[in-house]
């Protein structure tokens, strides 16, 4: 019963162990299949290679998932993030496309500010529906999920707006210190959200509201305000992700920008260990979850799995990831092994069966 064994158990017990393990396994499998997978080259002073691509492409998902983490932590859900991506991208691109000089930095910043402003309104709309009017989050945000696509189409007048703006393109494809700029934007957003929640008491209050809303109310927390706030944060995160998505292709398509990103984001949050029932949230877990999903997508393309069956492959991997993480599943698995210690939690469980 050495120290090493204890340390191993502590490591396996850490909530980030399984997401990291899954990520490592996926990278290893890719390397076996395609030995050059992990190679990183330097071209024109920038780093290139599949790992860098994965990081760059996962940036929008990380952003959306950060906001989603907070929303889910309050016991809610935000289905409208994909539409918010499309709307913000459309607003920014429309403004830039009308400008005389599409490369003017000030003009691009104005475009971004306008789009963020719109996102604030959209987030406030969701927040009011949920916290003031009291509509169930899934329904409240479904409204904007569906209507938002129409709104994006309205902005682009049903066309795909193409632009040719250097500064805007940089959001998606630019480089900074040899790495893609998008990585830094996602990283900055993550640090900002972390500081915003963990350096203040906001994180604890969000978790408290998500864990037990009535008890939080009786402890003097104005839970309505907290709930409102997280939907606004979520919309702003989605808007920035929308910039990246449209900047990647230098065009805004109201129909396809950010399509289904809400589902990937929810998945990233869940893989990261935040419960859909609300309560504790884990930003680092969410980021890992987003990386896992993007690695998976890249893997599917790299292995030449046909796009028709790619989603099925993705689904299977996701199910495995979720099962491996579920304590109940692992407990059952380890109990079958001879000599394995019985799970310690059993007396607690019995207690909970007493009817109130």
């Amino acid at each position, binding site marked *: 019963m050495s120290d090493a064994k204890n340390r191993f158990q502590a490591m396996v017990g850490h909530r980030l162990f399984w997401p990291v393990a899954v990520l490592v396994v996926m990278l290893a499998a890719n390397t076996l299949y395609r030995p050059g997978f992990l190679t990183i080259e330097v071209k024109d002073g920038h780093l290139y290679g599949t790992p860098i691509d994965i990081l760059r492409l996962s940036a929008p998902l990380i952003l959306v998932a950060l906001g989603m983490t907070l929303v889910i932590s309050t016991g809610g859900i935000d289905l409208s993030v994909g539409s918010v991506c499309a709307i913000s991208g459309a607003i920014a691109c429309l403004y830039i496309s009308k400008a005389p000089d599409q490369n003017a930095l000030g003009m691009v910043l104005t475009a971004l500010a306008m789009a963020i402003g719109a996102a604030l309104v959209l987030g406030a709309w969701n927040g009011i529906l949920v916290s003031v009017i009291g509509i169930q989050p899934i329904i409240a945000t479904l409204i904007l999920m569906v209507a938002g696509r129409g709104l994006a189409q309205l902005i682009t007048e049903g066309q795909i707006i193409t632009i040719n703006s250097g500064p805007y393109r940089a959001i998606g494809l630019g480089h900074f210190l040899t790495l893609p700029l998008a990585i830094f934007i996602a990283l900055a957003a993550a640090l900002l959200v972390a500081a915003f929640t963990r350096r*203040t008491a906001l994180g604890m209050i969000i978790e408290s509201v998500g864990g037990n809303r009535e*008890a939080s109310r009786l*402890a003097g*927390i104005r839970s309505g305000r907290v709930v409102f706030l997280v939907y606004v944060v979520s919309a702003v995160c989605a808007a920035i992700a929308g910039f990246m998505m449209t900047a990647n292709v230098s065009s805004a398509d109201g129909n396809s920008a950010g399509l289904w990103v809400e589902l990937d984001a929810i998945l990233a949050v869940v893989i990261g260990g935040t419960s859909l029932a609300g309560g504790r949230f884990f930003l680092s877990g969410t980021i890992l979850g987003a990386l896992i999903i993007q690695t998976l997508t890249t893997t599917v393309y790299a292995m030449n799995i046909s796009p028709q069956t790619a989603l099925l492959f993705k689904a299977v991997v996701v199910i495995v990831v979720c099962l491996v993480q579920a304590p109940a599943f692992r407990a059952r698995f380890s109990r079958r092994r001879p000599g394995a210690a019985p799970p310690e939690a059993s007396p607690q469980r019995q207690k909970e069966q007493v009817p109130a």
Partner: protein
Amino acid sequence: MTDSRPVLTMTGISKSFPGVRALHNVDFRLFPGEVHALMGENGAGKSTLIKVLTGVYGIDDGIITLGGEQVAFSGPMQAAAAGVSTVYQEVNLCPNLSVAENIFIGREPRRFGAVRWGEVRRRARQLLARLDLDIDVTAPVASYSLAVQQMIAIARAIDVQARVLILDEPTSSLDAGEVEQLFRIMRQLRDEGIAILFVTHFLDQVYGIADRITVLRNGTLVGEHPTAELPQLALVEKMIGKELDVLERIEEHPRRELAALEGGTPFVEVSDLSRKGAVAPFSLTIHAGEVVGLAGLLGSGRTEVARLLFGADRADRGQVAVGGKPTGLRTPVQAIDRGIGFCSENRRAEGIIADLSVRENMILAMQAARGWLRPIPRRRQDELVDKYIKALSIRPANPDVPVRNLSGGNQQKVLLARWLITEPRLLILDEPTRGIDIGAKAEIQKLVVQLSDGGMAVLFISAELEEVLRLSHKIAVMRDRELVAQLTNDDAVDADRVMQTIASGSQREEANQ
């Protein structure tokens, strides 16, 4: 009691849940044509008895017979088919369906597989006419009052040739007129020969309708009595029981005279505060350093009073003054701002945040009052949390474990700490010692004494009279959602006296003696 043979007998019924013996060797009989009240305090085993009878739970031991034959139902549906129907406290109808649909849901008269809607409506009208209820059977249930909904539920229950009708607290959300309407129907059904098992917390109602009373306490049978032979006081005694006081006595410290306390300005002055359906208008004054006990049976409105004082529910009318200034207590935030703290009786649903750590649970109320932008510095947190973990001897003494891993008593102490940290001037404790072990109980009682010595006002709510008597300077007695008396806790007041007040509801002359 026209028939000498019971329609239903339960003999030697025992039922245990892990760690709890819910019923132990309980006998129960029900005769045709009687209203039989099942009485007992919370946790006495009333609900469990009903649930084993209707097959929601299996029994560990014992025999149930219906009409002379031994039965063991697999669930409420089967019980209903055999003639044992239940109407629950929460009316479980589908509010969006029509009255007729609700009555016949799941057993609609059919022809060739198609529901005969005309027949459904005709029979629904017939059935309701039997209950003297003239309503539109095609209207949705939600368009009727709770009382009428209750009748509809009864109509559904008796349609299946019911021999036994179980009414589990049917009156808890009805007003006086509606209760009378319900009683009329119960008498009518009784006269038709149906045996009615009636569970309620309202003593007046028991004496208004029941023919016999069975009392349970702590899962055992205390006795079965004809109502006429059991005076109210005796009933209350049987329900509460004269428990041996195993608690170490709170040292006889010189309890400051109430008169001295009442000299200063009152901290809270409530006049005619009320909320419809929760508590009738009441007036109450609480001074700094005073412990006011709130006694009364479960469901008598004790918790409702506490919730109004904390702004957890909004009062319909009445005035509150805190520290001499008129104020509204419309939300918990306001109440906390005025220096009031509240430990709910429902620890799990309204108290702890199970996911969060002991530390977070403790500082929650203080942090909420500061606002999220001003987090309590870590060092200050450590100071506060360590102080209260020590002061209340919370086990394990680790602030970073999730509070769900603590025992009930320790969770209760964490909640106490949450409020003590906010340094309230009035602390409302609703059943702070329920369901916790004796050691923790004594510690919490001691703490209440210390706090009041330090000048804090405490409103202490407990079902245990001994506890209320030991701690309070003044005892307010609740009965049927009304504050019926305020007794100064001097030598003349003992448990019998309070029980008498609970039972008889005698008015204020008590207070003046």
